[in-house]
C-alpha cells in the first residue's frame, strides 16, 4: 500500500477515487450501519431528547464561562501538582511538549489517542527532534504503521478491513498472515506492552477537564490510555481549550451521551480520572503530570455567537456515523484531521476557507448529523453559515471569507432574485420554459450523467389554478 497524501483542496478528486473503490465503500457502509444500529439500540427507550438538552446546556454553560473556567482549571490543576501550559497554536503546543521531553532526555514517547495531537501534527514534530512517538491505541497504531492518518475520530482505522490489517501487521511487524482477529490483537498487544515499559513520556488527550477539581477525564476501551498515563515517569495531557467543564457532576451526563453516541456502549472499559502526579507513599503513577491547553483558532470561533456552538462538540463521531456523504466517501476524502459534518464546520476555522471551501457544501443538508448530535450542535445551520462566509455574504470573520464568490455565480443568483421578485416575469418565464420544452437540452451538466432530465410540464400551476377556478365559478353559476 502506497502512502497517499490527502488534502481538503482535492475533495472532489478524492471523493471520486473513494466512490470508485469498492473496498472503501463496503468497509464504511458496513461499519457505519453497525454503529448506527448500536447507538439506536443502546439509547432504547431513554428520553434521549431530555438528555441531549441536558448535555447541550452543560456544554453551553461551560462555554459561557470559558475564560473564567480555564483560569479555575489552571489553579485547581496547579493545586493538585499538575503543571499547566498554554499554547496559542499547534506549533507552540508541539514546542512545549518537545521541550518537556527534552528536559527529561526523552528518546521515546508513547501516545494515547488524541485528535488535538493529530491536529497539530505532534508526531512529525517529535520525530524531527529525534524523539520517537508511538501510537498505542490499536487503530492509531495500525494507521501509524501504515503511514496514514485516522479516517474517523473514534475509530481511526475504520477504513481497513481484516485482510488489510493482517497484511499491515505482517509486512511491518512480521506477524503471520491471518484472519484471526484475536491473534492479531494479541500480537499488537505484546508489541506495545514492551514499548509502554520503555517509554520515557506518555502523551494523552483529554475528554473532559473539570475546572472545579482539576481532574482530567480520559475515556477509552483498550487500557492503553491508562498505561500511557500511569507507566511512563512523565505524563503530558494535551487538549483543546473547549474541553473544560465546570463541575465534576457535569461529567456523568456527558459521559453517558458520549459512549452511547460514539460506539453504542453503556460504559467504556476504562474511564480514567487523573488528578495529580504520584503522591508520596504511592507505588506507581507518573512523577510529573503536565496539561497543555491548546487554542489553535478556538478563541476566534468563540467570539462569534453562532459559530461558538461548534465548540460544544464532545468528539463522539455520531455525526459522521450518520452522514450519508461520509458513509460513501470515507474519512480520508475530507483531507482534514476532523472529517465528516463536524469536520466541515470546524476545519474552515483551523485551515481557512481557501483550503476547505468544498467542505461546507459537501452535505445535502439532510439533517441527520444535527438530529443525532448529543449536545445539539445545529450542524446544518452552521454549514449554511459557512457557505455564506465562503461566498462573502456572512460576517467576514472566518479566514478566507469570500473565496468562493465568483462573478458568474453571484450574477446568476441576482438574476434569480430579480425573476422571483417580479411575479409577472416569473409567470411568463416559467410558462415559456414549458412551451419551449422541446428545445430543452437532454443533457443538463452533471445532473443528466446519472438521471434523466426533468421535463417542464408545458403548463404552470399558476395557469392550472386559474383554469380550475374559472371552471369552478362556471359550475357554480349553472
Amino acid at each position, binding site marked *: 500500500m502506497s502512502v497517499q497524501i490527502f488534502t481538503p483542496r482535492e475533495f472532489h478528486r478524492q*471523493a*471520486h477515487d473513494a*466512490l470508485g473503490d469498492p473496498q472503501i465503500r463496503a468497509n464504511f457502509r458496513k461499519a457505519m450501519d453497525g454503529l448506527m444500529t448500536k447507538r439506536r439500540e443502546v439509547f432504547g427507550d431513554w*428520553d434521549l*431528547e*431530555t438528555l441531549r438538552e441536558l448535555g447541550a446546556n452543560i456544554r453551553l454553560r461551560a462555554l459561557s464561562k470559558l475564560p473564567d473556567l480555564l483560569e479555575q482549571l489552571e489553579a485547581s490543576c496547579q493545586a493538585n501538582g499538575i503543571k499547566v501550559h498554554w499554547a496559542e497554536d499547534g506549533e507552540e503546543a508541539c514546542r512545549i511538549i518537545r521541550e518537556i521531553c527534552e528536559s527529561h532526555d526523552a528518546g521515546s514517547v508513547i501516545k494515547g489517542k488524541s485528535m488535538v495531537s493529530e491536529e497539530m501534527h505532534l508526531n512529525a514534530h517529535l520525530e524531527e527532534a529525534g524523539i520517537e512517538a508511538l501510537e498505542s491505541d490499536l487503530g492509531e497504531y495500525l494507521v501509524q504503521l501504515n503511514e496514514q492518518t485516522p479516517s474517523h475520530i473514534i475509530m481511526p482505522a475504520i477504513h481497513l478491513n481484516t485482510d488489510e490489517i493482517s497484511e499491515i501487521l505482517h509486512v511491518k511487524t512480521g506477524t503471520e498472515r491471518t484472519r484471526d482477529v484475536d491473534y492479531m490483537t494479541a500480537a499488537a498487544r505484546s508489541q506495545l506492552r514492551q514499548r509502554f515499559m520503555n517509554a520515557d513520556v506518555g502523551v494523552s488527550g483529554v475528554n473532559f477537564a473539570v475546572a472545579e477539581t482539576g481532574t482530567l477525564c480520559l475515556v477509552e476501551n483498550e487500557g492503553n490510555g491508562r498505561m500511557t498515563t500511569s507507566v511512563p515517569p512523565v505524563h503530558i495531557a494535551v487538549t483543546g481549550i473547549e474541553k473544560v467543564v465546570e463541575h465534576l457532576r457535569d461529567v456523568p451526563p456527558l459521559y453517558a451521551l458520549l459512549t452511547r453516541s460514539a460506539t453504542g456502549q453503556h460504559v467504556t472499559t476504562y474511564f480514567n480520572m487523573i488528578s495529580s502526579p504520584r503522591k508520596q507513599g504511592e507505588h506507581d503513577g507518573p512523577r510529573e503530570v503536565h496539561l497543555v491547553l491548546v487554542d489553535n483558532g478556538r478563541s476566534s470561533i468563540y467570539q462569534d455567537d453562532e459559530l461558538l456552538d461548534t465548540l460544544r462538540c464532545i468528539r463522539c463521531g455520531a455525526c459522521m456515523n450518520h452522514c*450519508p*456523504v461520509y458513509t*460513501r*466517501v470515507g474519512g480520508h476524502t475530507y483531507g482534514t484531521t476532523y472529517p465528516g459534518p463536524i469536520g466541515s464546520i470546524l476545519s474552515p476555522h483551523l485551515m481557512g476557507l481557501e483550503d476547505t471551501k468544498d467542505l461546507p*457544501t*459537501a*452535505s*445535502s*443538508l*439532510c*439533517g*441527520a448529523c*444535527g*438530529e443525532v448530535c448529543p449536545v445539539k450542535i445545529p450542524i446544518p*445551520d452552521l454549514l*449554511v453559515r459557512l*457557505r*455564506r462566509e465562503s*461566498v462573502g*455574504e*456572512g460576517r467576514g470573520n472566518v479566514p478566507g471569507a469570500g473565496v*468562493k464568490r465568483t462573478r458568474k455565480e*453571484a450574477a446568476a*443568483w441576482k438574476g*434569480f*432574485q430579480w*425573476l*422571483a*421578485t417580479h*411575479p409577472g416575469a*416569473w409567470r411568463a418565464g*416559467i410558462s415559456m*420554459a414549458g412551451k419551449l420544452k422541446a428545445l430543452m437540452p437532454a443533457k443538463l*451538466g*452533471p*445532473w*443528466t450523467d*446519472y*438521471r*434523466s*432530465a*426533468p421535463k*417542464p*410540464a408545458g*403548463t*404552470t*400551476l*399558476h*395557469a*392550472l*389554478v*386559474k383554469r*380550475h*377556478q374559472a371552471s369552478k365559478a362556471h359550475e357554480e353559476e349553472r
Partner: protein
Amino acid sequence: MTPVKLYPPKPEKAYFFGTCLVDLFYPEAGLDGIRLLEREGIEVLFPQDQTCCGQPAYTSGYQNEARAVAAAQLDLFPEPWPIVVPSGSCGGMMRTHYPQLFAGTDLEKQANEVAGRVYELTEFLVHVCHLRLEDCGTSEKVAMHTSCSARREMGLAETGPALLAQLGEVELVEQARAAECCGFGGTFAVRHPEVSAAMVEDKTQAIEETGAKRFVTSDCGCLMNIGGRFEQQKKAVTGEHIASYLWRRTS
C-alpha cells in the same frame, strides 16, 4: 420533552403555496393538493404573485438574495388563514428559516407570523383536516420516501405513511435505510454530482428491492432525483407526488 405542536381546527379557507418545482415540473401535483383541500370543504386561496420560497439561494449561502425573494412572498398571505405547502423542503424553509432570515430586520414580526401559519400538505391533511380516505384503486405495493426536510426539519415522518395506510388496497412497503437522504439536497446534486449519484443509486436500489413498482414522496426535489434515476436506468418503477397519488386513488 419534544414540544407538542397544537393544531388549529379545520379552517374555512387556506392559502396554497405551490413551490417553484411544482410550478415548473409537477403542476398537476399542486392542483391535486388543492383538490384534496377543496374536497374537505376548504376554500383554497392561491396568490398569483407567488414565486419561490428562496431556499435555493439560502442554502447556497446567498443570504441577501434569499431574503429579497422571501420578502416578496411575505405580503401574499394577509389574512390569518393557514398556508399549505406541498413540500417539506419549502415548508421547512418558510417555517424554520424565515424567522432566522429576518431576525433583527423590519420584517421580523411579519416573517415570524407567516412562519407560524405554514403547514406541509400531508401534515395539514392529517392533523388539521383529519382526512378520511376511501380507496377506489386496485391493489398495489407502494414505497414512500419521506424527504429529509419533512422528516427532520418539520418532524413529519409519520404523516405521509398515515395517509397511505388509509388506502385499503395499498400495501405500504418500507425500503432499507428509509430515513437516509436520497442525495438531492438542492444545489448539492450539482456541486457534488458523484456523491449525490452514489446516494440516489443506493436509494433506487433499496426501493427496487421492496418489489414496489411505484414510490411516492411529498417533495418534488426527491421525486425528480429518484424518479430521474429510475428513468435513466430504464427501470419499471415510477414516482408520483403523494398529493396526486391520494387524489387519483380516491376520486
